[in-house]
Structure formats: structure tokens, C-alpha cells
């Protein structure tokens, strides 16, 4: 690599400076994660911190968190720059939005961006995204008809101007949410995270003797871009196609058609032929579509190079306007993950023939299945608890799928003891689901089964966000599909999988999380592996 391509930075200095910028983003993330109230931020890692240059191009991103967000934040920042040109920013400013089309595809995520000044000059931006504890509207539902029902929409506004908070903006926002204190607390956590990032960058520039981030940014973008191009160039040229289906909403099955074209060191992912947008909240805004398309490609082709704006320059993503992957305003989008999480499976399915060693089968946990219980407990306190649990991961070329692990998202799960200590619910079972992993040379990861009894003094509300009832995770390269998801009440009824239902005290709800798809023909399953599966009951003779 010539020093020229690296903008005069030698490779050792570049490595050092890059690592340091990543650790700055990580430090900001640590500040955010530890002070946030949102359980979704914590349990679901639904947040990101990104350091950007003065154009809003990402230079480094936090290591954990949700991969898709870091891809979106720079786009949002560029929208901010259109509304507030670079010369209008002042130290101590902070601009926020939750507009689904400008930011992460649904209202609950707040994006906050703070300018970074060094020696009086705007040198970059510190940004963070976090899932807010509340944004008003129809909390946690996929059944709205328009985005306006889903909560309050905040256009890009200056929440802080030179360190002074805009009280009218705050007042307007807080008047529209159920948990104003927690919402405020989390906004403050985001501002703190951005300030940590901004302070560290200024310190960094001082230490490194740099006037700004522009030259360094270009060098780092170049490195990341070349790494991805090198990986794409190794894929034989061609057009690789696949189509997958998911439950969608009621009769409207979601169909994702995907053509991955590889030419030289560039890739085009085209979703032409995908379902049209619908009047239910599972539309996936283009920003989110893009992010959940490039992330699985990075995992498969170039997993270990650190990410920045350069990582995805070689990949173009196209989805027809008005499709479920590029819906028009004001389509409802609250549960856009129910569609966005499907894209990895479609892309891997398309690539199974050409990259069989680099992809995995569809995942039972894509999309995630979520149950939110809300009501009033014996003390008269309002409670609202989400049961975090995942289906099984798809099998890999040389390994069984992980049980109860989400991909492409990375939601964790909390403790049942902690869950029961804050909500009038008893979990009688949370256990692996035998025979739920798709058969194959390598077996799909097992899903799980949870049984929950309602013990509140009055009926409570159950909100469900789920899919894979009629469309289980498909196997790959000849593997079989995993078990589908099931949700059943103790009276035998099945609540709507994407809607809100009242349930009575004493009712038990059984949730069965889908298993992952298998990899390779089941006839090639190793006999010892099958015997071990039988011994441990992952697979039963009946199954």
C-alpha cells in the first residue's frame, strides 16, 4: 500500500490512530449504556455511538451495539447538515430527530448529534442512537395504519444551542410520552455520550498533532473500502437470486426478492420484486433496508476489518419505491424489524451456491419475537415488562446453529428471577425446544418454549410482535427448515401475532420460539452427533 493512498500516514501510525478512534467510540458507548434507563437499550443492545468527520462520514463506531445503527447515523447527520449548514453549528449544540425516514426507520429510536470543535474549527460530529423508553403513541404495536398513530415525530431540531437546552422542544416532547423522567434521563445519557466522544477527539487531535480529521478520515475510509473490495473481488462475477417469504400481516404475506450482482470489486443488492408497502407497521424504511443488507455481507465477506464509511462504498442497495423495503411517508413503520431482519436470510440464500462456506441458514430469531406485558400490579404501580428471548440461529457450514441466539440482531435475555421480581407474572417454564432445529449435516439451533402465568389483580395488556408462524426458518444448501413459532393461551386460543390483546389473571401463555434452519442434507448428519443429540434430548426419536 502506498503512503499516498494513506494520505501520508504510515501504516503503523494509521493502525494506532484507528484503534484509538474506535476506543473513543467505545468509551462513549460505555457512558451511554450504563446510564440509560431503556431496557431495550440494555437487553437488546439497541444503541450505537459513532464518530464522524466534518462531512458526517463515519470514521469509527462502537464495537458492541447494533451494527445497523452505525451505518444509518452518518446518513441522518447529512440530513442535519442540509437543514443546519456546517457554518451554523456552535460548540455545545446538539441536534436530535426520530424521523423514521431520516433516521433508523421507526419513532422509538432517538438520534442525537453533537459537533466536535478543535481550536475553534468544526472537525467532526459525535452521534448516538438509543431506543427511547417511550415516544408516546401506540406503544409496541404493528397494527397502526399510519405512522402518525405510532408516536410523536421530532423533526431535526436543536435540543441544545451552545449548551442551553431548548425548553419548548423538551416540553413539547415530554408532554407526549408516558415516562417523561426516563425519557429525559436517556436523552441526557446520549448527550453525555456525545460529549465524552467530542472531548476525547479534541484530546486525540492534540496528542496526534493533527489540525482536523479530514486526512486521517480519508486514509481510514480508503483502508476499509479496499478491504471490502478485495473480499468482493474474490467472489465470482454473476447475478445470484433468491426469494423468501414471511408471515407478513394477516393475509398479506411478505415476499422478499433479492438479486445480488457481483461485478469485479462491486456488489449490487436489488430487491426488485419485493412485496408492496402495506398499511400495517411492518414497513421497512430504506435506511434500515440498506443497513440490514450491508451488515450480513460484511459478516460473510470481511468480518474482521473495523468498520467505517468506507466499508460499504463498494455495495449498492436498491429497493423499489413504494415496496415494503422502501415505503413512502407516512406508512406505518413501528415494527420495521419484522421485515428488516429477514434480509440476511434472503441474501445468504442468494449466495448459497457461490459462497457455501461463508453463509448460514435462516435464523429462527429473525425476526425477533417479543411479548410486552403491561398493566397494574398489587401495589397499584404501573408495570411494563418485555420478555426477551430468542429463537435458534441457522446452522453454519461446519457447526450446528447456536440455540436461542438472535441474528442479524443481537438481543440478549434477562433473568427470570429479575423479571418476576418486577412484574406480577410467573414463568413456569423457559426451556429449549427439542426437535425445533432444522435437520441437516449441521443442525439448526434450537428455539425455546416459555410458559407465563398472569398474576396481576386485573387483566393486563399483551402486545405481540412476531412472525414465523406460517413461515419457519429455511435450511440452506439442502438443510431442512426449523420449527415454526407458536403462541397459545391456556384456553387454546391463539392471540394475534402482531397485535394487542387483553388477558385475564390466571391465564397461561405459551410462547414457542422458532428454531434455526439446517445446513446441508440431513442424510449427511454425523452418526455420533445424532447420538449426542438424542442423549441430550435436543432431538427426540418422535421428532
Amino acid at each position, binding site marked *: 500500500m502506498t503512503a499516498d493512498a494513506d494520505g501520508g500516514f504510515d501504516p503503523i501510525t494509521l493502525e494506532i490512530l484507528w484503534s484509538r478512534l474506535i476506543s473513543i467510540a467505545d468509551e462513549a458507548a460505555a457512558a451511554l449504556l450504563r446510564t440509560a434507563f431503556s431496557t431495550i437499550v440494555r437487553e437488546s443492545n439497541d444503541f450505537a455511538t459513532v464518530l464522524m468527520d466534518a462531512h458526517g462520514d463515519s470514521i469509527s463506531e462502537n464495537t458492541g451495539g447494533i451494527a445497523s445503527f452505525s451505518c444509518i447515523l452518518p446518513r441522518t447527520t447529512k440530513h442535519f447538515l442540509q437543514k443546519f449548514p456546517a457554518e451554523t453549528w456552535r460548540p455545545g449544540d446538539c441536534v436530535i430527530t426520530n424521523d423514521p425516514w431520516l433516521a433508523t426507520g421507526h419513532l422509538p429510536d432517538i438520534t442525537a448529534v453533537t459537533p466536535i470543535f478543535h481550536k475553534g474549527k468544526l472537525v467532526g460530529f459525535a452521534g448516538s442512537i438509543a431506543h427511547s423508553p417511550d415516544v408516546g403513541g401506540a406503544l409496541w404495536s404493528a397494527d397502526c395504519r399510519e405512522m402518525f398513530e405510532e408516536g410523536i415525530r421530532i423533526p431535526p431540531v436543536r435540543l441544545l444551542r451552545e449548551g442551553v437546552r431548548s425548553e419548548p422542544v423538551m416540553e413539547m416532547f415530554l408532554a407526549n410520552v408516558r415516562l417523561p423522567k426516563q425519557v429525559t434521563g436517556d436523552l441526557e445519557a446520549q448527550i453525555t455520550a456525545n460529549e465524552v466522544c467530542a472531548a476525547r477527539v479534541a484530546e486525540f487531535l492534540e496528542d496526534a498533532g493533527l489540525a482536523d480529521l479530514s486526512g486521517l478520515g480519508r486514509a481510514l475510509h480508503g483502508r476499509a473500502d479496499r478491504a471490502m473490495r478485495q473480499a468482493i473481488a474474490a467472489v465470482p462475477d454473476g447475478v445470484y437470486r433468491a426469494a423468501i417469504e414471511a408471515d407478513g400481516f394477516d393475509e398479506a404475506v411478505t415476499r422478499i426478492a433479492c438479486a445480488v450482482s457481483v461485478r469485479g470489486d462491486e456488489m449490487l443488492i436489488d430487491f426488485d420484486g419485493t412485496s408492496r408497502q402495506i398499511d400495517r407497521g411492518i414497513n421497512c424504511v430504506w435506511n434500515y433496508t440498506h443497513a440490514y443488507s450491508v451488515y450480513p455481507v460484511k459478516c460473510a465477506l470481511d468480518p474482521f476489518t473495523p468498520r467505517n464509511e468506507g466499508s460499504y462504498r463498494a455495495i449498492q442497495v436498491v429497493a423499489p419505491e413504494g415496496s415494503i423495503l422502501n415505503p413512502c411517508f407516512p406508512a406505518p413503520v413501528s415494527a420495521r424489524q419484522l421485515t428488516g431482519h429477514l434480509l440476511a436470510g434472503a441474501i445468504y440464500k442468494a449466495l448459497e451456491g457461490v459462497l457455501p462456506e461463508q453463509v448460514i441458514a435462516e435464523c429462527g430469531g429473525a425476526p425477533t419475537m417479543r411479548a410486552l406485558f403491561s398493566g397494574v400490579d398489587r401495589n397499584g404501580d404501573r408495570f411494563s415488562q418485555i420478555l426477551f428471548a430468542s429463537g435458534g440461529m441457522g446452522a*453454519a457450514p461446519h457447526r450446528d446453529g447456536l440455540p436461542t441466539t438472535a441474528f442479524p440482531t443481537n438481543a*440478549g435475555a434477562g433473568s427470570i428471577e429479575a423479571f418476576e421480581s418486577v412484574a406480577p407474572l410467573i414463568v413456569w417454564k423457559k426451556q429449549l425446544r427439542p426437535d425445533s432445529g432444522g435437520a441437516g449435516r449441521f443442525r439448526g439451533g434450537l428455539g425455546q418454549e416459555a410458559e407465563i402465568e398472569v398474576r396481576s389483580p386485573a387483566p393486563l395488556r399483551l402486545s405481540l410482535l412476531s412472525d414465523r408462524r406460517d413461515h419457519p426458518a429455511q435450511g440452506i444448501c439442502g438443510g431442512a427448515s426449523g420449527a415454526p413459532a407458536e403462541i397459545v393461551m391456556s384456553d387454546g386460543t391463539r392471540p394475534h401475532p402482531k397485535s394487542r390483546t387483553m388477558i385475564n389473571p390466571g391465564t397461561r401463555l405459551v410462547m414457542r420460539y422458532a428454531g434455526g434452519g439446517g445446513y446441508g442434507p440431513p442424510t449427511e448428519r454425523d452418526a455420533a452427533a445424532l447420538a449426542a443429540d438424542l442423549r441430550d434430548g435436543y432431538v427426540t426419536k418422535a421428532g
Partner: protein
Amino acid sequence: MATARIGVDVGGTFTDFVLHDPSRDLVHTGKLLTTPADPSEAIIEGTQRVLREAGLTPAELHSMVHGTTLVTNTVIERTGAKVGLLTTAGFRDSLEIGREIRYDLYDLFLEAPPSLVPRYLRREIPGRLDAEGNELLALDEAAVAREAKALVEGEGVEALAIGFLHSYRDKRHEARAGEIIRSLYPDLPLTLSAEVAPEIREFERTSTACANAYVQPRMQRYLDKLERDLARIGFEGRLYVMLSGGGICAVREAKAFPIRLIESGPAAGAMAAAFLSKLAGLDRVVSYDMGGTTAKMCLVEDGAPDHKFDFEAGRVRRFVKGSGLPLKVSVVDMIEIGAGGGSIARVEPGSGLMKVGPRSAGAVPGPVCYGRGGTEPCVTDADLMLGRLDPAYFLGGEMALDPDRVRRAFAEGVAAKLNVSADTAALGVQRIVDETMAAATRMHLAEKGRDPRDYALIAFGGAGPVHAWNLARLLKINRVVVPLGAGVASALGFLVAPPATDMVRSLVGRLERLDWARVNALFAEMAEEGRTLLEESGADPATIVLTPTADMRHVGQGFEIPVPLPGLALGEADVPAIREAFFAAYRLRFGRVVEDQPIEALSWRLACAAPGQDIRIGRGRAEAGGAPTPRATRPVVFEGHGPLPAPVYDRYALRPGMEFIGPALVEERESTCVIGPATRVAVDKHLNLVLELA
């Protein structure tokens, strides 16, 4: 009267000994190859040798403090017992389901840490308590007997663990199941989750119980044998074992809860640093211990290392958080970084940039310069190329290093791939490894709301003093203390560690609604238990200090912070003070408070400790002013300076009161202290080198 004490640290390669005889202010050290098949062989032989060299007999030993990697190695190597687990019906898979998180976002093929108890050995028992401890379903006692029999007689398990839901709140079901099992199999090692880790969160508690059961049979056999062997050679003193939290305990506790020894060795290093910080009069210190494979950093404030109450063992990827088995044990809170003398430099295929570590050449083949077959350049090789190490004086001259081989390895390997000179590549290795350590340290301190600039660095371990100056520079730390005997300094920790134990109980509640009578009852219970354990360890009851804290958070948050409490008998009247203490701790860590959000407590802790021993080092060396005389001068490369002529001093010739300025090198047997330009160095009365960076 027997007053001498000996510390014995059984490591993977070496067993280290450190003897202290207070009647003569004598500190004497020794080293022997570890005997893995039966570690007590090396312990006995080495103890006898060190005693002989010091002119003592085993009967003159007051005590032995023992640290061992046996527990951690058993978990890492998966060589523990066949364990059976009884769980609440519906929850036998909690152990395997875990936290459902991918520890690497981009690796599609990542491996989960395998459960210590496979599914077919996990059995379910009907019986259920709720979060308040109310019984929803009676314990099925017949099922307990039946499943225990099936596991012990049918499957041949060597140990059992029990992990029932909400046993942290009320252990009656676990205790009753335990009684039934003990009546059937009185000699079978049995671990109750509510005894080993009475804390809320079933996965972590059960994981701890299983790990304890997993290592228990082996540790019991080992400690039994060690006691017999020591008795055979005439040792009549007390045998203590080093706990992960930096305290020492009697053998009985070690046999009951061997999992508490998981970080036994590293804890000693932190205790040594804590002791040295007190000697040097420093109240805010970062302890920095760098060896062949790792660097370990620990915050030491007011003479005590930081603690935490969870740990991850047996990681699939050693330096990746989340890839191991969670344990609820009290440990010294340190970070371990894959940066040591043996860390290997390589060029990443994707980015084309150089990385150093975490892969290590270890002792075999070791760095290229050892000439034992290593071909990939390591940190030690870079140190040699840059003039930091003397090829003729490594390990006091015992091992000759080969600089030409190193130069070739750099030139043909990483330097060629990066298109830079061998010298640039070598300096690059040093810059990258130091930056890696600095970044990890900054992060660790930032998570605690600390700024490295407010701290001093205490550096030890073979590679610590070599990198300390540059690390301090990167962290903007302006004082570095390097004790004498950097290679064995951590063993001092065994001699200064106090008898100590950390107790915990969980009781969840909002601050304004807590049942204080219950909290006080928990503290009373913990205090009694703690005192009994310490008195068994020979502590004077009058000197035992009890420190209560609570793990608290705002309702709705997921992370608790430790909050100091005003006493052991609390009530409504203490609520404002506790709230203020919470805010103070919160503000320190996060820089702000959220006033109106309610506060809750999850767990209650009681740290019980008796004072540790004091030892004196370096007394009797005459003060001497002025500058020492260098024994040589050689060029050393410093970033931004190129090669600078650096005088080389013999560490053993330095006297308290001497002063000199950098650049300089101070060589001792196990290490070399590298001092860059614009740095004043003084030798203090304990023979520490004290570096003041400009």
C-alpha cells in the same frame, strides 16, 4: 515462637516462593518448575529449599499462604468432575440458554462456551417459590431422591449442584433437597447455589454452583494431599489459601467453595501493588503487571484494590467479554489484555495494518530472540531491537539473545508486508502494544468515572518496567513506581494479604419500601458467618472490620453500583443518607444524577476483614545521595527521538536517595526499567525507582 511466613504461588510454568522472617526483616524468594501431575511435589521441595537457604526449619513457619491456578486451569482445560445438576422444573436449560448474546457481532461461526453440565445430567424437580419467597408449589422430595439416585448411581456423577429459582430469597427448597441428598450420599461433594452465590439471577448463580461442583473433587483431593505432605515434613503452622478477592482463608472454606479461588494468582499481584502503594504513600494508583502473555491493570485506591462481584471463566476467546462462563464471586477487579513479551506481531489480511497480540509465542517457542524456533517477531524481540534489552544480560545473563535473527525476522516478515524498515516495524510493535494497553486502561478507568491523569503507575512483572515509562506517557500519568524484584514482586501479595471474606444476600426492594428488619437480619447473619470464618483463620476477633454495601440502581436500570452503607442496623431514618450515598457513587461514575427516579437495592454485601501483615523491604541499605555510576551506555530508540545514548545502571548497586535523569536503563535480573528523556528518577528508601515524567 514461629513467626516466619511463606507464600507459594503455583503457576502454569513456575512455582514461586517468597519467605518473610520478620525477626530479621528478611525477604527471600525462590522459583521451581511446577510439577503439574502433583503440584505439591514442587511445593514441598521448594519450601524445603527456601527454608534451608534462609536457615529455618519447617517447624519455624508460622504459616503458609498458597495461591494456585488449579481451579482456573480445571475450568479452562475442562478437566473437572462429572457433575449432575438439579433445577426447578421448567428450567433445566437456563445453564445452556444463558444470556442469549453473541459476543462477536461479525463472526457468523462463533462458538458458545460449552456448559459444564451437559443436558442429560441436568434434572428437573417440581417445587416453586416466587420472588418474595412464597411457596407456589411444594418441593417434590421423592423426585429429589429419585433424580439424585439416577445421576449418582445411573450416570456416575462425582458431584452434584442444586440451583432452584429464587433460592437467593429463600433457600428452604435447596436446603431440604440438600438434606435428602446428604442422607443418601454423605460423602458426595454437593453445592447449593444459595450457599455459594446467594444472589438474584438464576443463570449466573447456577453457573457458579456448577463450576464449584466441577472443581470441588479435584481441589479437595489436592488440598488433602498438600496438608498431609506438609505435616510429613514437620510443618505445624496454618495453611491459608489466597482468595480471588485478595483475602486469605482457611483450608476448610477453600474446600467448600473452591470456585472462590479462581483468580487466586492474579489477586496476589494486585495485593502486592496495594501494599507497595501504601509504602510509597500513593493513594491513587494503577497497578500494571505485564508478563509473557498478558498485561493486567487494576485500580488501587487508598491502599486497596478495586473489587467486583462477577467474573468470567474458561472463555472461548480469552480476551473477549461474554465468551466465558459467568461466575458470581468476589474478585479483584482487573482487566487482562493480550499484551505481553511474547505477543506476536502480524499484518491483518483485510486492512493491511499491523496488529500485536493477543496471540502469544508463550515460553515455547517463545520470541525469535530466544533462538528456540520462534519465527514470528514478538514484543520482546522489538524491545531487543530498540536497545531496551541487553542481549548479553537477559535473565541476568542466563540466556543469550540473538539480535541478528530478530532483525531478519522483522525484515522478512511484518516489515516487508508493510513496506517499512525493520527498525520502523520494531518501533511500531512497541507503539502498538503500548497503545493497546493504554486504550484498555483508559476504558477501564472511564467505566469507573476515573481519569488516568490523577493516578500513578506501579509497574512490575518481567515486561512491566520495560514498557511502563511509555505507557505512562500515553496515559499522561506523571509518576511511575518500579519496585525492586519486578519479576517476583507479585508474590509479596501472599505475605500481605489479610484474612478476609465477602458475604452477600439478595433482597430486592425500593429504598422507600424496604423491610429494614429483614435487611438487618441478613446483615446479622452475614456478620456471624463472616466472623466465624475469620476466627477460624486465626484472626483476632477484636480487629475484624465489617464493611456493609448495597448494590443499587434506579428502578428501570440494569446495572447496579456498589453503595457504602452507614451501618449494619439500618432503618427508615437512614434512607436519606443512603440516598445521598447512592447519588454520590452515581455521580462519581457517571458524572450526573437523575434526582426524581426511584432507587432500588438488589443485593446486600458485607466485606469482613482482619488487618494484613506488614513487611519491611530494603531496610538496612545505607542512604546515599548523588548520582549512581553507569556500568555502560547504549543507544535506545524512543518514539520521536530516534536512538538516544542511555546510561545503563545496575539495579542492585542503587542506594536509597540516589537520583538521575532519563534517558536511562536500570537492569535487574528479571527485568529492565526503561526510562525515556525528560524524566527524573529517584531511589526511595524501599529501593523503589520513582520516575517523575515532565
